[in-house]
């Protein structure tokens, strides 16, 4: 893994998290915990959340306002990864390319 893709986030050691689960991000399994947001799950394995035709996108406002972090979940586009919680087997698509450009 090159520097540009090493994870942005680490989980803190202190708190006891929810139960372990796995989500599917573009076909890759990503382990995470109940109560975490999609953004956190993804950013603990790489440095960006999604990618459009122009650039990689991460978190910006972090509170659901800017839609920088949108992904598709179970085929539904425009889901804000920063405020949406994961669930077991959730299918997340992060290649936006031209298609989600409103």
């Amino acid at each position, binding site marked *: 893994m090159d520097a*540009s893709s090493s994870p942005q986030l680490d*989980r803190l050691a202190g708190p006891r*998290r929810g139960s372990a689960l796995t989500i599917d991000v573009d076909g890759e399994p990503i382990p995470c915990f109940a109560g975490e947001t999609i953004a*956190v799950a993804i950013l603990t394995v790489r440095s*960006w959340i999604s990618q459009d035709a122009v650039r990689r996108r991460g978190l910006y406002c*972090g509170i659901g306002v800017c*839609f920088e972090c949108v992904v598709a979940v179970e085929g539904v586009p425009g889901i804000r990864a920063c405020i949406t919680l994961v669930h077991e087997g959730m299918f997340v698509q992060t290649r936006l390319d031209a298609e989600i450009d409103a």
Partner: protein
Amino acid sequence: MPDLLIVGAGPAGLSATNKAGQLGLDCVVVDENTSAGGQYYRQPPVAWANDRPSDRLLRGRAKIERATAAATFRLGCAVYGIDAEHRIWLDQDGSVERVEPACVLLATGAYDRPVAFPGWTLPGVMSAGSAQALIKSQQVRPGARAVVAGSGPFLYVVALELLHAGVHVIEVIEAATVRSALPFLPDSMRYPARLAELVGYALPLLRAGVRIRRGAMISSAGGDQRLEEVRVRPVRSGANDPPLERVIDADLLCVGYGFAASTELAQLAGCTLAWDRGLQQNVPAYDEWQATSADGVFVAGEASGLGGAPVAECEGELAAIGVARHLGRISDAGAQRMAEPIRSRLRRLRRFASLLPRLFPAPPELAELARPETIVCRCQNVTFERALEAVTHAGATTLNEVKTTTRCGMGWCQGRICGGLLPSLLAQRAGTGFDPASGFTARNPVRPVQVSSLAAIGRVEPSDHGGPGPDHP
């Protein structure tokens, strides 16, 4: 239908709920977050055990518990629209519903004011509030090496939280200087406790070896597909003066040059707006009961002006009293009696709050940073050059005109981000009388809503318009 629908379960909404409960109002609270608390009382997931909860977290939790007993809470539920008749549209996980409460309280809060500089769209560059939310509710370390840039006490709060989360905070880049704050210091001295609180944030940072640079600001961010370096400059160095720039290696840049109020719902409800000096934007105007110009629509908290959590809480309580009075549940005299102590507290709090933007103003030099190729509308990847051309070539003088020819503000976020940064940016850089107070006209839906959800109810022919056209399904 409820007496009162409260949008936003932050400090303002929660205080309003508790007061409304005391006054016997039938109240529904809606927040798109999956937990209550708003920004100030942001909570980790309920099920996560936490051995060392902070004092603020505990206070928030107690407040939320009380409010939950006093009203119906709908979390993870967005208000996506409001029309001029004050019909309110909710979207809960794709299930859409219309409510018509007697009154509405808009306690929709604020978000970090966006600033466009080269590299601000790189992953790793985020708002200060974003880093804070990651730590507080998700209990993660948002990066390894951080620079915190902006202006005001919130910077130090966030820097301290980063430090506690194990982030190496390299520098805090503060735009204000002691000299720029000097004229306001005498006034500030009247609030020793609040000043002590500010110092209380800075001391541990200094002790931990965090450099605090005053009179400096962000210049640009760089890196290959993610943040690798941050460039900072003195605020007053003249535009793009490379010799004065410093480069700091970092993988996290937290930016906090103040806040912008979330006012779309108020605009759509037809509330009269007024210019807010502290926020540098139009916000809903309100009276001594927090009532707006729109009948039955109230506002409280950061959605209607700067103030911080204590102000938001007082305003929330006042609004609840105002609603009860408006609905005739309490007498005017009774309402006045209840309101008086809250108002006197508010007056003092607001006086201090109004000092903050003067002590820590967002420097106008921020408008020097965007380069022609810098993206200003993140949703649509519109560059500064294109937005500027709309003004300099096509003669646009308002933000709506810029939208007409550039598609700024037409993406997923509905213009909250570019709408927050373009007015001052264009006014300063275009130099042709662009109106810095102009904004985008708010549009329903204020949150994107799934087509299938709308189609499901749209298919049922409403009985009140049985259009006799040939279009029966």
